[in-house]
């Protein structure tokens, strides 16, 4: 039997070292095939590092991640985060969503303007006008599977996912109704990621009436 064996050329590289990551997160960390494992490539290094620490220190829970990260040093976590952050890989086109136009419109409103009555700040206020994240520690929200976004907001609502205190996303998620979660994640998942997809250098200037949020993981 002489079937095609994958070329076993060993490289002394970070790509080789992180095969343990890309097995689920896809080649070069450009997100997994099953629509759940999030993209790593091009995310802010501070954000990726914070997540690695969150898994290691029990603020995020996923048995496979926790087991993999347990024997790693802080310096190595930083290097892994920097490696994936520096990868510039084009995003695939967005997956069409089955949500109604009304729901998508509500989602877009929440993302761009927030809802003052519900004390919900606009997503763009922290995640950047292009929603590709803000350096050094705020992630982009576009280019992520809807199931993944739903699971994260749900996790913050129940306390299953936490970030460094004060945990602004926990506060925000708890103010979202199920319908609003659905609206926001449907709209975000329907967006095609702009190119270039690099995180913004700064947050947009705060406009009048902007709801201030304290975020421990992205001060």
């Amino acid at each position: 039997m002489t079937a095609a064996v994958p070329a076993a050329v060993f490289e002394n590289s970070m790509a080789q070292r992180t095969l343990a990551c890309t097995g689920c997160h896809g080649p070069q960390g450009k997100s997994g095939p099953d629509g759940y494992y999030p993209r790593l490539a091009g995310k802010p290094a501070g954000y990726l590092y914070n997540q690695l620490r969150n898994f290691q220190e029990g603020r995020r829970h996923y048995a496979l991640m926790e087991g993999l990260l347990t024997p790693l040093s802080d310096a190595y976590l930083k290097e892994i985060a920097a490696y994936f952050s520096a990868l510039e890989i084009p995003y695939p086109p967005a997956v069409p969503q089955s949500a109604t136009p009304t729901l998508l419109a509500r989602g877009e409103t929440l993302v761009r303007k927030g809802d003052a009555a519900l004390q919900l700040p606009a997503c763009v206020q922290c995640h950047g006008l292009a929603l590709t994240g803000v350096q050094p520690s705020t992630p982009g929200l576009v280019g992520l599977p809807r199931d993944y976004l739903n699971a994260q907001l749900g996790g913050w609502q129940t306390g299953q996912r936490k970030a460094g205190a004060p945990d602004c996303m926990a506060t925000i998620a708890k103010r979202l109704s199920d319908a609003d979660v659905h609206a926001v994640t449907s709209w975000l998942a329907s967006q095609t990621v702009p190119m270039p997809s690099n995180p913004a250098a700064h947050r947009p200037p705060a406009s009048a009436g902007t709801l201030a949020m304290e975020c421990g993981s992205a001060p």
Partner: protein
Amino acid sequence: MSTRHARPQWVLWGSAALILGAWLWIFWGADALHARTDVARRAASTGTAGTLTLAQQLEEGEYLARIGNCGLCHTAPGGAPFAGGRAIATPFGAVPSSNITPDPTHGIGRWTADDFWQALHHGISPEGRRLSPAFPYTSYTRVSRADADALFAYLQSVPAAARANAPSGLAWPFNTQAALALWRALYFWPHSDNGRPADRGAYLAEGLGHCTECHGTRDFLGGLKRDKTWAGAVLPGIPWYAPSLQKTEEAAARSVADSVALLQTGQSQWLGTSSASGPMAEVVLHGTQFLRDADAQALARYLQSVAQAAAPATAHRSEHPKTGEDPRAARLYLDHCAQCHGKDGQGQAGAYTALAGSRGLLMDPPNNAVLHVLYGGFPAATAGNPRPFGMPPFLLTLTDADVAAVLTHARSAWGNQASSVSALQVQQLRRTQLSH
């Protein structure tokens, strides 16, 4: 609860309780007498802090706390160092580790050096309560008074954390003082001579290093079998197998240099690369990588003597090696494993385990090999191996039958001769929670 229809049962239980009570009375008495004697002795103790200055004592204490891995158990994930709260799995329930920071209310801020010595050496709290042997005073009883004092001085210098201790997760009757008295009578012998020992390696391995607590075989009451101190054991709660340090086909030391490399870097290059994995990777990461060279050498020499003491004439291999060629398993191996571990199981020097002749792969029970395939993993990122190469998890991509087939293949290819792995074994290990 009505007792009207349960009279015969009550008689039965009553008799059982009486017999148990009589036993406990005897053991309790012996244990209490022993504790009292020691309290008197320690009151007379003059202290043996010796000639170290406080700065030297703090430095030595920090080193000892590291190589003894105190912080690994006494720190919850993400919690303040030494503030406790990590659940220590035992066959009888989880025991949360305690706060050993100098907090006066929740920690050990009000303890004296004598109190600390009593806990370490006798497993007795300052209030006179018997401590759970999840805190392995069965090993720490060997620690010298000078080292105990250094450890205490260091722990008193770390930041205090006001974290309250969680209640024990042990079920009745294992959570009672009576049960502990009985257990101690069966399994605990306080060490008699606590001066500086002649054999530094034995002292580190059997004392502060508490190696036998994982590598020793335990009986059904959780006591270490005296004749199987290094015989290997599946860990309680988590199904990793801590291999025998006597058997050449498991993890018996192969050379002093090899043991030193494994302890200090987490990796060995003996006939191909292999790494400490699972809980041992944590032990290396937080503890043994910090061993001073002389201590690593001493420990390695001692492990060598343990290995030689029980080395069989020839390596044991399963009587039922899998010899038939399974084309599907060979295919799975080529598709999923060969890229890193090599077409012929040769591994990759410095990066990936050589599977041909790999003791970790060939051990029985095959738990560690199965857990590796299911959950993947990294070797410890140590100063000597700071950027280790990882293995992806196959939990989501391979079925139980696939994992069993590919492991059976690897355990019988390239000259390997070990028993086959069944899908049932994989299924049982897949269902366990590895996180702690």
